[in-house]
């Protein structure tokens, strides 16, 4: 079971959280100028990283805030968890 550190509330059981998947997916500003492939890429294509991965979690049974977690998807070890506004290069939208 994961022990997740909510940046607002501290460490809590995984059961208090819900998962929000890959972080840094930015909604295209002008969908109407995209090709079907580009729009499909935004909607469906995912990194699905094996290794260190930045993902979103929501403290849904707690403070209900969204935040970011850096986690190894093989060992499940959580490396870091932080708010969206941390000025951090990791935190920028990525593709």
């Amino acid at each position, binding site marked *: 079971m*994961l022990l997740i550190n909510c940046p607002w509330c501290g460490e809590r059981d995984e059961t208090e959280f819900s998962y929000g998947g890959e972080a840094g997916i930015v909604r295209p500003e002008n969908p109407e100028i995209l090709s*079907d492939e580009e729009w499909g890429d935004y*909607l469906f*294509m995912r990194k*699905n*990283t*094996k290794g260190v991965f930045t*993902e979103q979690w929501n403290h849904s049974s707690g403070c209900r805030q969204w935040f970011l977690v850096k986690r190894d998807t093989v060992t*499940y070890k959580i490396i870091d968890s932080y708010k969206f506004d941390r000025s951090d290069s990791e935190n920028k939208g990525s593709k």
Partner: protein
Amino acid sequence: MKNKYSALSLIKNAFTNNKNWKPAIKNAEPKKSYDAIIVGGGGHGLATAFYLAKNHGIKNIAVVEKGWIGGGNTARNTTIVRSNYLWTEASLLYEKSLKLWEGLSREINFNVMFSQRGVYNLGHTLQDMRDIERRVSANRLNGIDAEVVNAEQIKKEIPYINTSSSARYPILGASLQKRAGVARHDAVAWGFARAASDLGVDIIQQCEVTDIIKSNNQIHGIETSKGRIESNKVGLVVAGHASVLAAMANLRLPLESHPLQAYVSEPLKPVLDTVVMSNAVHGYISQSDKGELVIGAGIDPYIGYGQKGSFCTIEHCMQAIMELFPYFSRVRMLRQWGGIVDVSPDACPIISKTPINGLYLNCGWGTGGFKATPGSGWVFAHTLANDEPHQLNAPFSLERFSTGALIDEHGAAAVAH
């Protein structure tokens, strides 16, 4: 067959103390090049190699497996086989597979212990029952056996199930597919491997693919832990690792790999002679020939390549089983494990050509591909051999994620396995 199994061969070998059995599978080392390479020695990869050799006359084939054959999801799953999906595209694909299951032990001369003991998909609410009516009607229009049964009929067939109306989630009825059932997962991998090996397919174990070689949008082969192997046709059939392998060819996939766990109890005397699944309380159960209860539920929510999941998922699943079978409350659980399932946005597989010539994908089976093993191999072999999908797998293309022609089986097919 070099080593045909039969009642007579059993008797003959008994007289020589079973010392004269030949190895069932030739363990091959890689040759320099092949007409086709299948990456991934799970059931789907091995079935693909078998049907390529048998139906399409391609004999110079390698199956490249990083661990041992059938060590992935194939030998980690709870073996439910059925074809009662909602949409025509999906139900025809799974039904093709079910028909192949019905003759499989004979076809590959290996007892896969396919047992058509029936599968019940329970309904607990009025809306569940409406969905069941709709799915059963759709199945019948597609020529697939299906019926709706009520709580009384369920109780009669499954005496230990709790059909009391005072249950928290009362059972109102179910869909029943009588031709559905279970099979022996290891036997499926071994049987296809042996049959393919007999047709000259090289089965190369302990050989990890580390890169995909291509130039000018054409595949030329793979790099492996046993060196470079050339081929201008490569099929990726690696389940939870599909995104990792696709990335080697700079291809992005609409998949997320999740842990999916299963659980087995201590052996009991026969108590359950069918398969029971419930989407609403989210659990399913059958009993193995050894007497163990085989139990499973949903994926762990996060991306995970660790072949393990969280304890809260186990707890949730046990609660669901207790809701259905309070009688099992004191049964002790013996073993638990996880696999890595490649979940797609529409809960349907990708069996497809790719934008790269000579690269083919068979993935996205997620939590429910065991039932499709023979059918998946059959259509994928066709796709590789002809460089064109069969009409059964044409709708399962990678392009559907840009055209929008998804085949949404999420809620429709009851519990996803």
